[in-house]
């Protein structure tokens, strides 16, 4: 089968568009879509200048998604004096698994000559995910603890490093799964939060001063295409599954979604376009209902929370009680 654009052998078929593309036209198409998303979401503010550049912190786990994101951002903005980028890696304390992916991060950042910082659960919280998964005082999936701790550190360090934005490698499958989960859980308030936290274009969001705004430039790219891009570009992505991975509900949703995508190509894209519109309406509605939510400072760590003790400090407390 030939590429739609030239005579070379196609390496992929996109069921949702009907395209057959060769290696170079496929890679160009991924890059074009990522750059298009960056423009559409207004990631580069008009007032960014070489004298007063925009600072981006990239969450780099060493997995294929964040490695592809970092590579494309460097290709696009590496020489742009209006943008300063650095990579931030979190080590959760997962023996073997995270050690190898940290190596992939160090290699990539070295190749790109990008500033790279590493923070660990062990130094920050005195815990390791291997122990958390075993002790499990709250009777939850390991990912439920890990997500709280990771978001906390990404947020805290993005702020400390002076980030204007925090960029993560979520792909189309990740986002469509999250959207479906919010719909099936009936969680409209979460949709509103999703819009203002990471989904809406920057000129349409109402970000609060409490959090570093996030962006997901890969969110139009199906997971499979992200993996294929990493493979074809021979990027140093780490390719082992986390030994504690067990988000049961997300797994069910993924199966359902991919099954639908197989029978009705384009399902993921249409889920997202409808969901974005609904999330924006929900965001408008909740903003006008209760205005800006007043957040307290966590009495232990000072981070913003609706409660007295933030979720992270609550979890750390139950871990210490084990």
């Amino acid at each position, binding site marked *: *089968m030939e590429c739609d654009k030239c005579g070379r*052998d*196609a*390496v*992929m*078929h996109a*069921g949702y568009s009907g395209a*057959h593309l060769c290696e170079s036209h496929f890679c160009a198409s991924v890059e074009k879509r990522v750059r298009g998303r960056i423009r559409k979401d207004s990631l580069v503010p008009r007032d960014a200048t070489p004298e007063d550049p925009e600072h981006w912190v990239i*969450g780099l*786990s060493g*997995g*294929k*998604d*964040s490695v592809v*994101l970092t590579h494309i951002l460097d290709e696009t903005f590496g020489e742009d004096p209006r943008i300063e980028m650095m990579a931030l890696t*979190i080590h*959760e304390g997962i023996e073997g698994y995270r050690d190898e992916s940290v190596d992939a991060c160090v290699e990539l950042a070295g190749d790109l000559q990008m500033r790279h910082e590493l923070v660990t659960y062990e130094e920050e919280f005195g815990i390791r995910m291997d122990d958390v998964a075993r002790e499990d005082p709250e009777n939850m999936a390991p*990912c439920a603890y*890990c*997500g709280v701790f*990771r978001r906390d550190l990404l947020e805290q360090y993005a702020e400390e490093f002076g980030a204007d934005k925090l960029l*993560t*490698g*979520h792909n189309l*499958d*990740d986002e469509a799964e999250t959207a479906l989960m919010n719909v099936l859980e009936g969680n409209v308030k979460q949709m509103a939060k999703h819009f203002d936290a990471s989904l809406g274009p920057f000129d349409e969001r109402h970000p609060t001063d409490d959090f570093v705004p996030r962006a997901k430039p890969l969110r139009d790219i*199906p*997971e*499979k295409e992200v*993996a*294929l891009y990493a*493979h*074809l570009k021979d990027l140093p992505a780490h*390719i*082992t*599954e*986390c030994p504690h*991975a067990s988000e049961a509900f997300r797994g069910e949703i993924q*199966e359902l979604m*991919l*099954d639908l*995508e*197989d029978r009705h190509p384009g399902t993921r894209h249409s889920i997202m376009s409808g969901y974005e519109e609904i999330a924006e309406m929900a965001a408008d509605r909740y903003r006008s209902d209760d205005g800006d939510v007043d957040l307290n400072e966590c009495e232990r760590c000072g981070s913003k929370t609706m409660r007295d003790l933030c979720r992270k400090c609550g979890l750390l407390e139950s871990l210490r009680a084990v």
Partner: protein
Amino acid sequence: MHVTVEVVGEETHDVSVDDDGTYADLVRAVDLSPHEVSVLVDGSPVPEDQPVEVDRVKVLRLIKGGAP
């Protein structure tokens, strides 16, 4: 026709598909979704909607990134 499907890092299966069967059919036959794998023929990825023309393929599973 009979095709050997090696799921890299996991099992190897013997699969039979119709003469006009596609690479996507091979993937479904080993209980995976064409959206969570790449099919490699002689080390190169192939479009999954194409008819199978070889008697051996490798299937590379995507790894969930877990945490970006």
